[in-house]
C-alpha cells in the first residue's frame, strides 16, 4: 500500500476519500484481531447513524492493525451498505511497519491517528471512536457521543460507564484521581476507549508531535483527554450504561500497559505543569444521556497473588525505592507489607504520597523512566488488593463514594506534590548538604 507523503493515509485511501468528498460524521473503529466482536460494533454504529443522523453524511472507518483472524472480513460481512465502510490498515508488527512506515509505531494511537486524518480530510464536524471488542454497544452510543458535538458546539465527549467495582483499577486508583486533582475537571473515565470529538479537536491532535511515543500505543486515551482539558477545549461526558468487552487485549501485558498509560500521565504532567500548578480543586463536567441501572459482569480477582507480588516488590526492590521515595513513605509501605490476610491495607494518604513522589521522581529523572514505571507495578497491585479487600461487601454506590474519598485526598495533598515537584531529590539534597 502506497502512502501519501503529506499525511499518513495511503494513496488508495485518499482516492476513495476524494470520491466521498466531505462527510459530517466520521466513526472510527480501531481493531486488531477482533473478528468475534467487530461485526456487532459495525452494525450498531451503522444503525445509530441511520437512526439518529439519517440526513448527515457519515463514514465508518475501520483502522486495522494487521489482524490475522479475518477481522476485516467480519466487517465486510456485517449487514450494511458496503460502500459506506472504509478499511484502513495500520501495522501492529514491525514487519508491517516497513510496508507502511508512515503509520508509525504499532498500537491504538496509530489507528486513531489514521481515523483523525480521515476526519480532517473529509472536513468532518464530528468524529466518534469506539472500541472493536465491545459487546454492550448500542446504536444510541453514536448519538450520545456525536450529538453534543454537532448540536452543542462541544469539543470532547468522554464516556461514562457503569463498571464492576473491581473493573478499571488503574483508572480508579491513579488516572481519574490525578486527572481530576491536577486539571480540575471530573472526567470519570478518562481512558474509557470511546470518545466523541469535534473536527477541530481531531485536527488539533494531528498537529501534535506525539505519534512516535507511547501515545501511539495505550497512552492515546489519557493523552486525548488531558490535552482537551488542559488546552481549554469544551469537555463533557455521555452516560453509556455498562461497558462489556472482551476480557483481554491480545498481546498486552500489565507491565507494558501500565508503563504506557501511567507513564503518559506523568509525561503530560510535565507538558502541562504550568496549567496544573495554577489550578486548585475540581469541577464536574456536563453529563449527557439518561443514567440507568444495569447489571455488570462479575470479575474474579486473585488477591493473594497481588499481595504476594507487593511483598516481593517491597523486599526485592527496596534499594530502588530508597533511591527516590521519602524515608517515611518507604517505611509506611514496608509496614503495610507486614499486615496479613484480610487486614492487608495500603491507606489512601500513603498511596497518594507515593504516587506524587513517583511523579516527582519521573520529573526529576531520578531513575530510568522505564524502570521507574516497572517498579510501580507491584505497589499498584498491593493497592488494588487493598481496595478489593476493603470494598468486598460494598455496593456500586458505596464503591463510588470510596473513589470520591480517594480523589479528595489527591486534591487535598496537592501541596505535597508541589513540594516534591519543585524540590530536588532527597539523595541529591543530602549530597548538596555534604558538599
Amino acid at each position, binding site marked *: 500500500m502506497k502512502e501519501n507523503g503529506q499525511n499518513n493515509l495511503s494513496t488508495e485511501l485518499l482516492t476513495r476519500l476524494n470520491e466521498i468528498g466531505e462527510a459530517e460524521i466520521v466513526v472510527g473503529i480501531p481493531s486488531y484481531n477482533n473478528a468475534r466482536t467487530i461485526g456487532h460494533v459495525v452494525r450498531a454504529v451503522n444503525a445509530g447513524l441511520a437512526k439518529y443522523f439519517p440526513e448527515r453524511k457519515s463514514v465508518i472507518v475501520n483502522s486495522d492493525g494487521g489482524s490475522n483472524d479475518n477481522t476485516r472480513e467480519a466487517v465486510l460481512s456485517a449487514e450494511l451498505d458496503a460502500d459506506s465502510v472504509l478499511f484502513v490498515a495500520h501495522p501492529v508488527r514491525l514487519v508491517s511497519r516497513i510496508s507502511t512506515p508512515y503509520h508509525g509505531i504499532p498500537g491504538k494511537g496509530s489507528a486513531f491517528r489514521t481515523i483523525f486524518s480521515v476526519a480532517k480530510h473529509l472536513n468532518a464536524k464530528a468524529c466518534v471512536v469506539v472500541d472493536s471488542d465491545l459487546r454492550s454497544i448500542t446504536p444510541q452510543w453514536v448519538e450520545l457521543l456525536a450529538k453534543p458535538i454537532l448540536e452543542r458546539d462541544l469539543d470532547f465527549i468522554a464516556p461514562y460507564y457503569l463498571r464492576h467495582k473491581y473493573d478499571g483499577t488503574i483508572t480508579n486508583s491513579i488516572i481519574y484521581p490525578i486527572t481530576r486533582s491536577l486539571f480540575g475537571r471530573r472526567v470519570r473515565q478518562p*481512558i474509557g476507549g470511546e470518545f466523541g470529538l469535534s473536527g477541530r479537536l481531531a485536527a488539533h491532535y494531528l498537529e501534535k508531535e506525539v505519534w512516535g511515543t507511547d501515545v501511539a500505543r495505550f497512552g492515546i486515551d489519557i493523552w486525548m483527554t488531558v490535552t482537551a482539558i488542559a488546552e481549554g477545549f469544551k469537555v463533557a461526558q455521555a452516560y453509556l450504561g455498562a461497558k462489556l468487552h472482551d476480557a483481554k487485549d491480545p498481546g498486552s501485558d500489565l507491565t507494558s500497559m501500565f508503563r504506557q498509560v501511567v507513564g503518559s500521565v506523568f509525561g503530560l504532567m510535565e507538558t502541562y505543569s504550568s496549567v496544573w500548578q495554577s489550578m486548585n480543586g475540581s469541577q464536574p463536567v456536563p453529563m449527557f444521556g439518561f443514567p440507568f441501572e444495569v447489571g455488570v459482569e462479575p470479575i474474579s480477582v486473585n488477591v493473594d497473588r497481588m499481595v504476594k507480588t507487593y511483598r516481593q516488590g517491597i523486599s526485592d526492590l527496596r534499594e530502588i525505592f530508597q533511591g527516590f521515595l521519602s524515608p517515611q513513605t518507604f517505611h509506611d509501605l514496608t509496614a503495610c507489607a507486614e499486615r496479613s490476610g484480610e487486614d492487608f491495607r495500603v491507606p489512601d494518604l500513603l498511596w497518594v504520597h507515593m504516587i506524587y513522589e513517583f511523579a516527582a521522581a519521573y520529573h526529576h529523572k531520578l531513575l*530510568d523512566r522505564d524502570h521507574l514505571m516497572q517498579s510501580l507495578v507491584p505497589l499498584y497491585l498491593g493497592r*488494588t488488593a487493598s481496595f478489593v479487600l476493603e470494598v468486598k461487601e460494598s455496593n456500586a454506590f458505596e464503591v463510588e463514594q470510596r473513589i470520591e474519598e480517594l480523589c479528595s485526598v489527591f486534591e487535598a495533598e496537592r501541596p505535597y506534590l508541589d513540594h516534591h515537584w519543585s524540590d530536588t531529590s532527597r*539523595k541529591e539534597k543530602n*549530597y548538596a548538604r555534604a558538599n
Partner: protein
Amino acid sequence: MPGLIEKAFIEPFDRLAQQLALVVPALIIVLVILIVGGAVAYVARRLTYRLLVTTHFDRLMIQTGVASTIDRARVFRSPSDFGARLVQGVLWMFIILLALSATNAQMTQDLVVRFVNYVPDILTATLVLLLGSVVSKFLARSALLAAVNAHWSGARLIAGGVRLLVMSLAVVIALEQLRIGRTALLVSFGILFGGVVLGGAIAFGFVARDLARDWVQSILKSRASEDEEVFRHL
C-alpha cells in the same frame, strides 16, 4: 702539610660542592614542580567540583546507579567530590612524572617513559571498568524488575547473577588491556564461566530436580490462573 690539608679537606669539599651544584638545582626544580603542581591540582579540584555541582553531576550519577557504588566506598562526600578528587589524582600523577623527569637521572627517565607508554592502557582499563559498572547495574536492575513483575521468587539472585557476569567480563577485558596474566586469566575465566553454567545446569536438572519440577509446575499453575482471571486494569 698544606698538601695534606688540601687533599683531606678542600678537595672533598670541592667534589661535594660540584656534586651539589649538579643536584641542588634539580632538587629545587622538583620542589618547585611539586609545590606549583600541587597548587594547580588543588585549584583544578575546586574548579572541577564547582563545575560538577553546577551541571548536576550528582543527579546523573544517581540516575545511572553509580552514586551508590561511590557511596559504598565511604570515602567521598558525593559523586562530585569523587570526580573532583579523581581529576586532582590524575594531575598529581602527571606532576610526579614531571618531577621525576626533571631529576634527569637515567633510572627515573626510563620509569617515566615506561609509565607514559602504559597510561593509555590504564585509561582504557579504567573506562572499561566504569562502563562495565554502569551497564551491569542497569542490566541487573532490568532483570530484577522483570523477575519481580513475573512473580519469580529468586529475583534478586537473578539480578545478582547478571551483575556478576557483566562485571566479570569487564574485569577480564580490563586486565587483558593491562596485559596482566593474559592467558592464565582467560583460561581461568573460561573454566569459571563454564563451570558456573555446567554446575547450575547439573544442580538444577539433576540434584535439584524436585525444585525444577516444582518450579515448572508453579509457572504452569500461575499461567493457568492468569488465564482464568478476567481482571481488567484500565
